[in-house]
């Protein structure tokens, strides 16, 4: 899923400065699961912002809504009735959600409350870790199901580098060396010999480097 983290209160206060009636919109999918922008977080942030405004001797009115997904028009359209008399929309969705709202309500100011971090696995309660960098050409078959792009700090496809120490990456002793994980996994599935294959330089044009990506499925279009 997509993971995100709330911006600091100070930053959000600055982002919403000057607006007196805010529609705070949560998203019921990824950011609910990572406790960044679901219904509960909408309640907490709206309360924080109202109190912060009062502490500055001013008033802020908030309308709280959470839709199932901010990245699908069917759900976004449910906000139409709430939007009219609000000065701005504060989206607690990921970056896609913020833009979904902005595209659907072209004359409204839409502001982000979160920092979107990437695609991750819930490793345990309260801990999420990146697993895929969306490179557009998946090579997990060659690395035992461990992604060298997302899990090696240098995205090496012919690793490891010289900085791998006791299974940890040189950039941070808290971070597993992605290549140690690849090695351990390939060993466990008896495929170590595959690691002798030298990987050619990756074509990054399928990733962000090739410009904004889209998927167009003619069979699904109406």
């Amino acid at each position, binding site marked *: 899923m997509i993971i995100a983290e709330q911006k*600091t*209160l*100070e930053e959000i206060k600055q982002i919403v400065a000057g607006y007196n009636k805010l529609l705070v919109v949560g998203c019921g999918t990824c950011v609910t699961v990572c406790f960044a922008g679901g219904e*509960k977080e909408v*309640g*907490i942030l709206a*309360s*924080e912002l*109202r*109190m*912060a405004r*009062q*502490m500055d*001797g001013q008033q802020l009115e908030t309308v709280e809504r959470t839709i199932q997904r901010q990245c699908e028009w069917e759900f976004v359209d449910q906000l139409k009735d709430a939007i009219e008399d609000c000065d701005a929309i504060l989206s607690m969705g990921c970056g896609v959600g913020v833009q979904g709202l902005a595209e659907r309500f072209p004359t409204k100011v839409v502001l982000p409350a979160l920092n979107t971090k990437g695609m991750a696995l819930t490793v345990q309660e309260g801990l999420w870790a990146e697993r895929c960098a969306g490179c557009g050409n998946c090579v997990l078959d060659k690395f035992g199901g461990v992604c060298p792009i997302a899990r090696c700090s240098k995205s090496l496809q012919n690793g490891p580098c010289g900085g791998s120490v006791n299974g940890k990456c040189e950039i941070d002793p808290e971070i597993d060396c992605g290549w140690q994980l690849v090695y351990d996994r390939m060993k466990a599935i008896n495929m170590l010999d595959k690691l002798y294959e030298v990987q050619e330089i990756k074509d990054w044009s399928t990733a962000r480097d090739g410009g904004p990506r889209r998927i167009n499925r003619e069979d699904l279009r109406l």
Partner: protein
Amino acid sequence: MENEAEKSPNGYEPKVVAFACQYCAYSAADLAGPTGLQYPANVRLVKLPCTGKLDVLYILDAFENGADAVFIAGCLDGNCHHVEGPLRAKRRLVLANKILNELGIGADRLGMYQMSGGESIRFVEAAREMTDRARQLGPSPLNQRKSAANE
């Protein structure tokens, strides 16, 4: 007869909200009366089915609606009807404390106490301690701003 010890010397009486687990602290508070123990009338009790049900939003709601101090009263560690309610509540307080500090209300207005269902005296002590603390701290900065705005 009024208990003078339960009164503030300067006349300011804080509002204190207690979120109490029904299995321990709420029963302890309930037992205070029959046991002949008094706790300050400043304390408003909110019954929780378990401190594990505590939500940061409840705490913020209390402060936003005029509380000068809030405390959570739950079971002793290892004695929770739902096994780890107080442990979860303590985790929630990490975020609540951070938010209260960021807002300038101050985490010292939030407390947590643990007791068994029979320990009325512990509930009474907690209620007195938090009320005293709130009296010393004065009205919450949010309440101060509100009354300044109304003047």
